[in-house]
């Protein structure tokens, strides 16, 4: 990210949080929606944003971090462009999710929790995505892919690789 990009994305997340607070109020009830909005805009919640929210809600930053860390979908570190969430809940485990995780590790050369050096892919092993009738499943950003096998997985990852 260049300094210019950084400044622009700063403007976007801040103005979105302002809009949201205008609509929902400055009470703590709008804290989670604010965090979700920043996560959506930047892909993670940077320290600047936490400090900014601390001032708005008049809360210590530790309190805001305590909320952030209780949710799996809120991150304090930047993730790859494509966030691969592979489900390893019971229904998917029974349907060989471990083999899929191994395949992704082999193809992308990253472990769960890691991001590829080109910042393109992050691999996460997650709990139920609510599509158990299509087990095993994964979600890439907001798209669910079901009834996966090694070949299908390879195709999906190849497609994403070839996009920029």
């Amino acid at each position, binding site marked *: 990210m260049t300094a210019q990009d950084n400044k622009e994305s700063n403007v976007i997340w801040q103005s979105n949080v302002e809009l949201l607070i205008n609509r929902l109020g400055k009470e703590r009830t709008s804290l989670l*929606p604010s965090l979700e909005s920043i996560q959506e805009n930047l892909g993670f919640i940077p320290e600047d944003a936490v400090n900014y929210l601390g001032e708005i809600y008049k809360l210590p930053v530790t309190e805001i971090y305590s*909320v952030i860390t209780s949710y799996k979908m809120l991150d304090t570190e930047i993730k790859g462009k494509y966030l691969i969430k592979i489900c390893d809940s*019971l229904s998917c485990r029974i349907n060989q999710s471990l083999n899929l995780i191994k395949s992704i590790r082999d193809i992308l050369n990253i472990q769960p929790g890691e991001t590829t050096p080109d910042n393109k892919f992050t691999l996460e092993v997650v709990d139920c995505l609510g599509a158990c009738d299509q087990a095993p499943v994964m979600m890439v950003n907001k798209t669910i892919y079901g009834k996966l096998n090694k070949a299908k997985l390879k195709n999906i990852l190849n497609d994403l690789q070839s996009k920029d």
Partner: protein
Amino acid sequence: MEELLLKNIRKTNYQNISVYVADGGYQALKKSLFMKPEDILNEVKKSCLTGRSAAFPVATKWSLTRQNSARPKYIVCNADEGEPGCFKDRLLLSRDPHRLLEAMIITGYTVGSQQGYIYIRGEYTNESQIVENAISQAEENGYLGENILGSGFSFHIRVYQGAGSYVAGEETALLRSMAGFRPSPGIRPPYPVKYGYLGKPTVVNNVETLVNIPTIVLNGGDWFSEIGNPDYPGTKLFCLSGNVNRPGVYELPFGVTLGELINEYGYGVRGELKAILPGGVASGLVTDLNIKMDYKSLAKVNSLLGPGVVIVMNKDVDIIAISIHTLEFFARESCGKCSVCREGIRAGLTIMNRFARNEAELGDIELLKTLRRLMYDTANCVLGQAALNATVSAIRLFRNEFESRVRNQSVW
């Protein structure tokens, strides 16, 4: 049997309000607005509708909230479907969203609330968008907002999106999440009907429960109470997955046997049956296909119905590995507030990992059972109380598999 809950999910474009209205949608709301709230409450009471997770009578919950003099009151729909193996609410939210809104407006009118929230799990972003669109359409058409259909009654609904927390599905944790705090379960009582969202009286019902309301209003409580199993009227959604030929969501009466569900609806087990979790990862394993799927029958075999999540396992499944897998899930999702849950699950994992390494002591089996009893008796919420259910039921059903992993005593 006739579908009450899934009847609209195969219809096209049902998310569009004009399609919903042309098919008789919002008629129950119109009817309700001409009724007295206490008469609606009476119909719900007569229907004997119970909450579709903990079997608490809906009319009792509503009436306690209605009687409370504190203002404002809130209606919260729990759509935080985080239970592994559960995918029924997703279907209702994405295919029939207006019926849920209609149900919530009627609930608000009945208990005297003007604000509803739908707490949708974070992973369901598309579903949230569909519900948001439905809310806008309902507002534009006068079914939602100020002075609904000229009745003088006003009601607003807002979507509250979760961000990935299993324990947030527990009602007090859910309300804390909405208030901007860590989603950790509180101590009940006081119950949300008295001290709920922001400390105000709150009805918390889940999607599957609420979706019954328009049907009850249109057809009457007596009509509903005659449907299905006399002990638990209405229908239940069962989410069938795992080693089964046709996984899916099936709507059946309470009391259907596991065998019927798995063989007739799921087209049978893929492979040879080993065990079934009939109520999700918090329930105890069972092996008998004649077991009836209702609260009492499952309690009798030391299991539970929970949200109706049925996970089938065949003989390829290693029961020790599965027990560890469920414990690891609970360890991740424990909010950590109560030490019995936080440390108990970890202790359980330590012991189970000894079995996995063939290094267990014979006394470890008893130790696990004692730990489970301790956690059941003392953990603050159901997460900790139920965390060792699958493990202890596995010991009961497959004791030899545990014993075979006990360290050979003769080496000492």
